[in-house]
């Protein structure tokens, strides 16, 4: 099947791993995810200041301003993400929180805000957005506990909390802490979801590489006192020595 600008799907998947956006006006996309386009499109960094009004209306996450670009003009834009699966989601006056590295693009009718859970973005309002996943996405109804590496996001729900296995907890309190750490199953910490809504899980534990975690830590250091910063420094030095 050979596609051209007319036969390419409009706002639909080209195959499981590529999505074609029919851009008429403006759209937010993650930096570096454009693989091809037809038509007259321009790409401008969100942080460049050229689309101030647009950013004020729909992009409310300074931490991720460098990770997104605004595509403007008229054309068919194909997005891909390292051969990962791509799906589109339609929100109708709803909210959906997704791991920031997996948010590939969204319409400006949505508002993008930082989630209180580090490394996640919340999209609010009505419109379409795109997310990638390693393997197909599964929707699970709470109550459910999910491995953090397999979690893609959650919809219409309060934020999750961490749930630790009892054996791991006991190890933390007792003298046998290091001993327990040595025989951990790697599954002693999960995210616990309760309430009404849906949890999105990818069929793999492969996290996508993103700078968001580091950015988040760096951003949070601005609220620390001087003695706290020194404490953080010594923790980091200790971690580096243990590597």
């Amino acid at each position: 099947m050979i596609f051209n600008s007319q036969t390419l799907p409009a706002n639909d998947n080209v195959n499981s791993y590529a999505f074609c956006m029919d851009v008429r006006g403006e759209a937010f996309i993650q930096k570096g995810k454009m693989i091809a386009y037809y038509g007259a499109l321009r790409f401008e960094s969100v942080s460049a200041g050229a689309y101030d009004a647009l950013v004020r209306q729909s992009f409310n996450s300074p931490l991720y301003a460098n990770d997104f670009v605004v595509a403007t003009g008229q054309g068919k834009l194909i997005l891909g993400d390292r051969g990962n699966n791509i799906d589109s989601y339609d929100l109708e006056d709803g909210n959906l929180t997704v791991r920031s590295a997996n948010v590939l693009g969204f319409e400006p009718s949505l508002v993008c805000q930082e989630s209180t859970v580090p490394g996640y973005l919340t999209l609010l309002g009505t419109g379409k957005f795109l997310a990638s996943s390693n393997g197909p996405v599964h929707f699970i109804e709470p109550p459910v506990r999910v491995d953090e590496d397999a979690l893609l996001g959650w919809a219409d729900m309060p934020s999750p909390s961490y749930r630790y296995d009892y054996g791991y907890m006991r190890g933390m309190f007792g003298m046998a802490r290091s001993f327990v750490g040595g025989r951990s199953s790697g599954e002693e910490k999960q995210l616990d979801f309760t309430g009404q809504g849906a949890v999105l899980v990818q069929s793999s534990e492969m996290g996508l590489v993103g700078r968001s975690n580091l950015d988040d830590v760096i951003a949070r250091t601005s609220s620390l006192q001087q003695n706290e910063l020194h404490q953080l420094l010594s923790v980091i030095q200790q971690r580096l020595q243990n590597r």
Partner: protein
Amino acid sequence: MTAFRLENKRLLEVTLQNERVMARAGSMVAYDGQIKFDKSILGGEGLFGALKRRAGGEGMPLMSSSGTGRVYLAENAAEVVVIPLQQERIFIESSSLLAFDDGLRTNTVFAGLRGATSGQGLFTTTLEGYGQVAAISDGTAIQLEVSPHDPLFVDPDAFIGYKGDVRQEFVFDVNWKTFVGQSSGESYQLKFTGQGVVYIQPSERR
């Protein structure tokens, strides 16, 4: 002519009857019959071709498989796309090449200054004649048509190859903000004009 068949999306089966097929070195995962594998030192291009390839940084370690039987080829579980050539010429990134018919003529051509920025070398590989080419793609490959009134822009990292009467240009979308470290991440693209087909993969080359 050797018979290329996709055993599944990620595995290529080549049936040989006293024939020879060229493939990326180390891509054989299984075979049956009487088949001999040889390292192809000159890549079927003679001494001058091999030197040009080395000088251009378009390295392509190849092996030749000859005999009678079936050879199964794969590369890192990437998807395989078989492209038939009928007295045509295909331009293909050597990093995307899996196997090709022994009867095809290979060459390297200057591909412009993109090598300096995308790290793909200054040269690209061409295959010409009558036969089949197997390319690897990270995710299902997409075929996009280029026509005179419909030019196509492609991210250099997603580019696999093209065939037909197509012209390739390097387009820099540079503005002053790019220089102060606020690049949009899409500031250079390949522009294709003319008439033909461009093959891309839904992934940025790792």
